[in-house]
């Protein structure tokens, strides 16, 4: 998840594009660049067995680039604040809606890195770029824990990061 036009907010879509070009997943795995889906996230997660959300994180608690994970209990324990418009990121709200409907995924994990710059047209900051490999490692780790087979492609294509040609394209 994230807006590719707003600096570090592009982390989620960028990681998804990298995963797509460098790895082969089992058919039951879906990779999606959801942009900033707000409440439509409910449709994407409800009824799935497991969901890994990749997002940029906004907090001053730790330095930019720190990789954090939030599990289902962390996300559900957050009370959704009063919303004025449909854009407010709604991860907790969508999970609560899925829970009320009785089809919340068994496994939910949000993996992200703390962002530094959310300005229009800016590339990923050095700090977040430096965290990309860790985020990908955490995603692969969670997939392994879930028993999903992942294979590295013999030759990796260039990731289609059309919004920023200068983005790096390799995973070490």
């Amino acid at each position, binding site marked *: *998840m*994230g*807006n*590719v*036009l*707003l600096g570090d*907010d592009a982390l989620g879509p960028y990681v998804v594009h990298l995963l797509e070009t460098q790895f082969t997943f089992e058919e039951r795995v879906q990779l999606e*660049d*959801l*942009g*900033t*889906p*707000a*409440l*439509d996230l*409910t*449709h994407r997660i409800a009824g799935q067995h497991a969901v890994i*959300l990749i*997002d*940029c*994180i*906004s*907090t001053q*608690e*730790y330095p930019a680039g*720190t*990789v*954090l*994970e*939030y599990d289902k209990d*962390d*996300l559900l*324990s*957050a*009370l*959704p*604040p*009063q*919303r*004025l*418009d*449909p*854009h*407010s*990121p709604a*991860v907790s709200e969508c999970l*609560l*809606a899925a*829970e*009320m*409907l009785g089809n919340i995924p068994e496994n939910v994990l949000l993996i*992200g890195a703390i*962002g530094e710059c*959310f*300005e*229009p047209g800016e590339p990923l900051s050095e700090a977040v770029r430096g965290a990309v490999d*860790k985020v990908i*490692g955490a995603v692969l780790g969670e997939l392994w824990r879930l028993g999903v087979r992942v294979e590295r492609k013999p030759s990796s294509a260039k990731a289609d990061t*059309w*919004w920023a040609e200068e983005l790096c394209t390799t995973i070490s």
Partner: protein
Amino acid sequence: MAKRITIDPITRIEGHLRIDVEVDNNAVSNAWASCTMWRGIEKILRGRDPRDAWLFTQRFCGVCTTVHAMASVRSVEDALKLEVPLNAQYIRNLILIAHALHDHIVHFYQLSALDWVDVLQIPKADPAAASRLAESLSPWTRNSKNELKAAQDRVKAVAASGQLGIFANGYWGHPAMKLSPEINLLAFTHYVQALEYQRKALQVVGILGSKTPHIQNLTVGGVANAIDLDSQSALGMDKLEMIRTLLAEVVQFVQQVYFVDVCAVAAMYPDWFKIGSGVKNYLAVPDLPLDSRATEFDLPGGYIRNADLSGVKGFKTAADPVFRQSVTEDVVHAYYQGEKPLHPWNGETEPAFTGWEAEQKYSWVKAPRFNGEPMQVGPLAQVLIGYSQGHPLTKKYTDMAIEKVAAIGGVHATPAALHSTLGRHAARAIRACMLAELAQKHWQLLVDNISKGDYSVYNAPVLPSHEVQGVGTHEAPRGTLSHWVVIKDEKIKNYQAVVPSTWNASPRDHAGAHGPYEASLLHTPLARPEEPLEVLRTVHSFDPCMACACHAFDPAGRKIATAKIL
């Protein structure tokens, strides 16, 4: 002594709508609407190929992706004087309709119904009585006692867990809540059902657009859908049939549930036909073109000044000469450099942030003006403009709404009562019914045209070397959207998007005139100023949307200690 109240969900993420009101004697005496986030995305487009602009513009916003893509290709087509084949018009229209139906359903049930519906009342309802009431209002087949009881049990389960979960942020038990337990239960049951139907509407967008969010099938000059009736991978009978089935279900939900619920809520809150009017200048652009040159439309446009419905002026084309000439943006109270109001083709977006100052600059939203005046945009504008021009489809559903409200609550509303908070909800439901009918019409138009053997979807654009200007409009779910492009040497020289919520959330202008949100809040009575539910009702009735979605996850207030650091 006036007391200032700020409603600011800034704890969620930097950059959203903030409302400040001054309250005197339990009524709003002054109001400010501001967006707390920098909107300078247009600058990214300068120097790029105009044929690619739509891919970027549909990332402006996470909810309204499609509308920014559409307005963008239309702006370039306008600049190049490029016609769009019939099939492409119909396919685009179907996408726009499906997107709008999704959006209107989400708005009512997920974003505003709980301003009127008191969840705490639901456990007290009698499902059998609620079912009898529902069946007297609508032929909808999913109003059975058992279905209602199942929904009631969901609320009871959440309540029994000791946490309100999804309902934790409402003003439950507020004295301004008036619905009976049975109507509360009905509305909540439909809130749950709405999740299914908004998803079906999105599936239509996904089938035609290849994916959603972020459709992939647009191109300047048409669409990229290959049409082949016998193919499963192209747009053929299989997919068209799937679309027809999905649309039929959404249409039924809109006409038998959403429309009826809005009429029922309106009938039970008649005072709200007198609250929340504000700016009574209205603006809408015609949309859903019926020919390749876009000279005829299924949705009417035009403008109304100062509530004078009989003086309505119509727009003949989507980029009517009057519209082209009359739009300016004022930045006296917005965080941008500049003194004079500028036409969007000459628009500048140079930031000048000062912090929130009531008498000076206080918002990142510019103040768009039409002939120098603030305008209200959105379904209400479109319905009033259509109704005043005698547009048959608008008249049909507006009259039906007025009759329904009278039948349920004995409230005899007139079109003039639509200048209100409830009027905006009613107009959105009226528009949704119109769109539902048009969805089926445009599906048939597409199928008939393909059946004639016309498979054309695209006219190739030719970029001139001299400077050209274009405006692309779309009557989006929240109102008039316009993208303004200047092209020189085959590159974008300037680009400005004047989005619906910029019109409605506009700050004051150099003359001190309030924007529509601000004006609509004046004189609103507040039962409990410390819980300003009434302010939310009016602001929500506009379906606010600050077109600058950023999605960084903000863990404020969460148990960060349990997060795992890698």
